[in-house]
């Protein structure tokens, strides 16, 4: 796209947009949403739904805003009577074969056919009830996708996604005229690792997620901006919760990271957020047993262990922990001039790229904050750190319950869950989270605010989507509180009240984050300083 700016007006609002911009995008800049179905900024233009018809002065016919490029001095009228009546006509046509089964349709409430019909459709149809509506049975397209052809408006977004974005053209438009439907190759399944996006792309309730089928009505959902924890790509997502339970993950557009898409692995990686077997209270070891207690006693117990630890510690951290938590875990030792070693381990899996989008893939490294951990000095040599932990004075384990390692020193565990099985089973008598002296219940990514740094060094915020269970607290709070209790006389013992303040503390002391704040990061994130090398 050129840097040359074109001036036009959309519904009397003047806008200047780069040459080559489509009218529909220019209208967005003017604050005007032109109703549309087939157009999607992440897909090639099809121009088939004819919903975005607008009037352009000096043009004899109505034009589709999605396929018309802006021109200098163009006067676009989306609300002229000709444009409105054309769109009303399209809506009427779209509805004649539509079953109007909104009460049992998952899309209801977030359906563009509903929305635009309410906005500018006819109050009643003129299609005689005598005429049969098109009927085709529901089809099973793939592992998570159902096709309900009766609701389909043939916008072909799904066909174009599979053909032009995923580059696995298994869908097509079959038949002609009003008999047309979305067909699938007879020997193929819609099982591409990114296939689930067709459900999001579908503007109506025609392509449905089996996972979300009849789980919730759209209007019952609370939506929170988050970051996918499925891999190191850092796709921006929305966590949809219903009554504090995560029921769905959807992509949140970010042109720098995931454009409009997320992979199925990430889409399905949310059930753990709803686990019921969470640690809900701080635990301290008393008489050989872990006892639930309050935060004051648990923090004091941990502080006592740390004070007596000659400041030699090992931190085994999950690469799913927030940057803030990783920072304060480190500071427990480092800020007090101690000798520390931190490490994380990464679960590996298959890589699956989205063919047509550069630098977008389900990454082999299934860790959302490995890069953040690296920037904070955590190493990848997990085995060496586990070995070093044996002789460390304190081993702090952050949310890695199964592989806590053994230590002759004190073990502090901060996590969301304790491993199943009794004492001694996990660690063979000398390790495991159940052998900790102190256990802190912490919030999961869905329950706290924080940041991750993706593989490209982009610092991105995530927001709290559901309440923390019991007395659990964000890990950054636990460690910052502990740090404040320990104190070191240089002022860092000031308490940290919010995630934003926790990040500010991090930004003021780590070069890679220097100058950043939650305000700067916004919803889209910004790259960490690229000049800072990753510590070896």
């Amino acid at each position: 796209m050129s840097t040359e700016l074109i001036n036009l007006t959309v519904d009397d609002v003047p806008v200047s947009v780069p040459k080559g911009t489509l009218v529909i995008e220019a209208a967005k800049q003017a604050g005007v949403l032109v109703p549309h179905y087939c157009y999607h900024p992440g897909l090639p233009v099809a121009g088939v739904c004819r919903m975005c018809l607008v009037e352009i002065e000096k043009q004899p016919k109505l034009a589709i805003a999605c396929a018309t490029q802006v021109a200098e001095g163009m006067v676009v009228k989306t609300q002229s009577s000709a444009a409105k009546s054309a769109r009303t006509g399209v809506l009427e046509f779209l509805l004649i074969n539509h079953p109007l089964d909104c009460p049992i349709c998952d899309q209801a409430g977030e359906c563009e056919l509903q929305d635009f019909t309410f906005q500018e459709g006819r109050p009643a149809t003129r299609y005689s009830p005598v005429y049969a509506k098109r009927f085709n049975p529901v089809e099973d397209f793939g592992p998570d996708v159902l096709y309900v052809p009766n609701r389909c408006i043939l916008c072909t977004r799904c066909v174009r996604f599979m053909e032009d974005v995923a580059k696995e053209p298994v869908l097509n438009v079959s038949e002609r005229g009003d008999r047309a439907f979305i067909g699938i190759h007879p020997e193929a399944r819609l099982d591409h690792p990114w296939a689930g996006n067709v459900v999001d792309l579908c503007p109506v309730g025609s392509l449905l997620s089996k996972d979300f089928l009849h789980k919730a009505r759209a209007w019952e959902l609370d939506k929170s901006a988050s970051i996918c924890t499925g891999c190191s790509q850092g796709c921006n997502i929305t966590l949809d919760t219903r009554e504090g339970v995560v029921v769905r993950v959807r992509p949140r557009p970010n042109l720098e990271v995931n454009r409009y898409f997320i992979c199925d692995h990430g889409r399905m990686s949310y059930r753990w957020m709803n686990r019921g077997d969470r640690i809900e209270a701080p635990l301290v070891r008393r008489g050989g047993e872990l006892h639930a207690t309050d935060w004051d006693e648990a923090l004091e117990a941990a502080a006592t262990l740390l004070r007596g630890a000659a400041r030699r510690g090992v931190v085994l951290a999950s690469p799913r922990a927030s940057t803030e938590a990783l920072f304060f875990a480190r500071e427990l030792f480092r800020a007090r001039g101690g000798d520390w070693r931190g490490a994380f381990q990464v679960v590996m899996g298959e890589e699956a790229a989205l063919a047509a989008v550069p630098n977008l893939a389900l990454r082999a490294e299934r860790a959302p904050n490995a890069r953040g951990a690296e920037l904070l000095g955590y190493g990848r040599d997990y085995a060496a750190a586990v070995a070093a932990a044996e002789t460390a004075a304190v081993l702090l384990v952050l949310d890695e319950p199964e592989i806590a390692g053994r230590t002759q020193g004190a073990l502090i565990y901060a996590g969301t869950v304790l491993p199943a099985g009794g004492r001694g089973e996990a660690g063979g008598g000398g390790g495991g989270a159940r052998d900790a002296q102190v256990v802190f219940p912490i919030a999961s990514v869905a329950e706290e605010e924080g940041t991750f740094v993706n593989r490209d060094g982009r610092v991105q915020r995530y927001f709290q989507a559901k309440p923390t269970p019991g007395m659990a607290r964000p890990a950054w709070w636990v460690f910052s509180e502990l740090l404040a209790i320990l104190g070191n006389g240089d002022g860092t013992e000031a308490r940290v009240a919010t995630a934003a303040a926790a990040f500010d503390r991090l930004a003021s002391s780590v070069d890679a984050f220097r100058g950043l704040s939650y305000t700067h990061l916004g919803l889209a994130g910004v790259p960490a300083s690229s000049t800072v090398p990753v510590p070896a």
Partner: protein
Amino acid sequence: MGYPHKPHPRETVVLSRHFGEADARTYKGWVKRGGYEVLAQALAMEPGRVTDIVKESGLRGRGGAGFPTGLKWSFMPKEKNKPHFLCVNADESEPGTFKDREIMRWTPHALLEGSAIAAHAIQAEVVYVYIRGEFTEPWDFMARALAEANDARVFGAIKIYLHRGAGAYICGEETALMNSIEGKRGNPRIKPPFPAAAGVFGMPTTINNVETLAAVPQILKHGAAWYKGLSLSSPKSTGTKLFSVCGHVQKPGNYEVTMGFPLKDLLYDLCGGMRPGRTLKACIPGGSSVPILNREETESCLLDYEGVVDKGSMLGSGGVIVFDDSTDMVYQIMRLARFYAHESCAQCTQCREGTAWTTKILERILSGRGTTADLDLLLDLSENMTGKTICVLSDSCAAPVVSGIKKFKSEFEDYIAGRRKPVMVA
């Protein structure tokens, strides 16, 4: 026209001169008739000069839109940075039109010669002749003629390929035809980009109708001025045109007349008039996609691009469908709508849903269960279907409906009021 009737004295036989002569199909026979002489001359000319001659002649596209052919050729990039293509639209799928079929059946070399000249003019190295799938006989003659001409090496560096359609009406639409050649579903493309910028395989492409290209050698042979002189009324419509007349006339068939010829004379004189005891009721002058003319309009219509527009219709492809007073216009219009509903490619909403809905309403009227509101509804749907889609299939469905209701409203009202016996069960 020569076949199946002897040429009528009032015909101007240019394209149809050799119709009915089996010998003209062969390479030798065609050369004997002076064929391929102008091709050799044209290939030696500057491409731009060929285009200029065609421009001067006033030749306009014979496929339906009537776009000036030379002007279309001149849209091709002068600087050749990419391969150029010529597509020959031999899909002739418009109901009521069967002129291209006869050109390919009787004078396949005329088409090949014209195609090669056009390819030279637009600097195309490859020509695709997209032949309607149902045209089995024309296909055979074209294939034979092409093989013979290739053996005689008359095309120079130009390669001509025949491509067979699979029976979709919409593949006669130029961009759908290109998609079909590329092996894709035959869906019309949004324009721009126009074919001259990005046509078949994304390369600069010109697409012309069979009859247009068959006229090109004649223009080069006899000169632009001669062709331009073939005009009886509007100077903007030049040359001769083949009219495929079908329906209720005594002698249906192809007739080649000079532009501006009276439609009345074509029907009553050349075609022998109506069947005994019958009178003219209506006529579709340019293939099924154009508005219907009533008797008065038909009898005062001049057959050129402007003359037919004056009467509220279009010259289109020159497929003249004639209805006498025995015709049930409602039924005929339903048949047309049903055709378009069947052939809609399903891309655009208005066309996919509108053509089928229109058909249902017409069927219901014919079943005696229509209402007076149905007529207003049909007109309103037609309004929504006109000028709002990628191609004009939707408009084509609306045209006969709108003109039919306007001109033959009483027939619709007879069915609705029960004055006429239902002819359908819906």
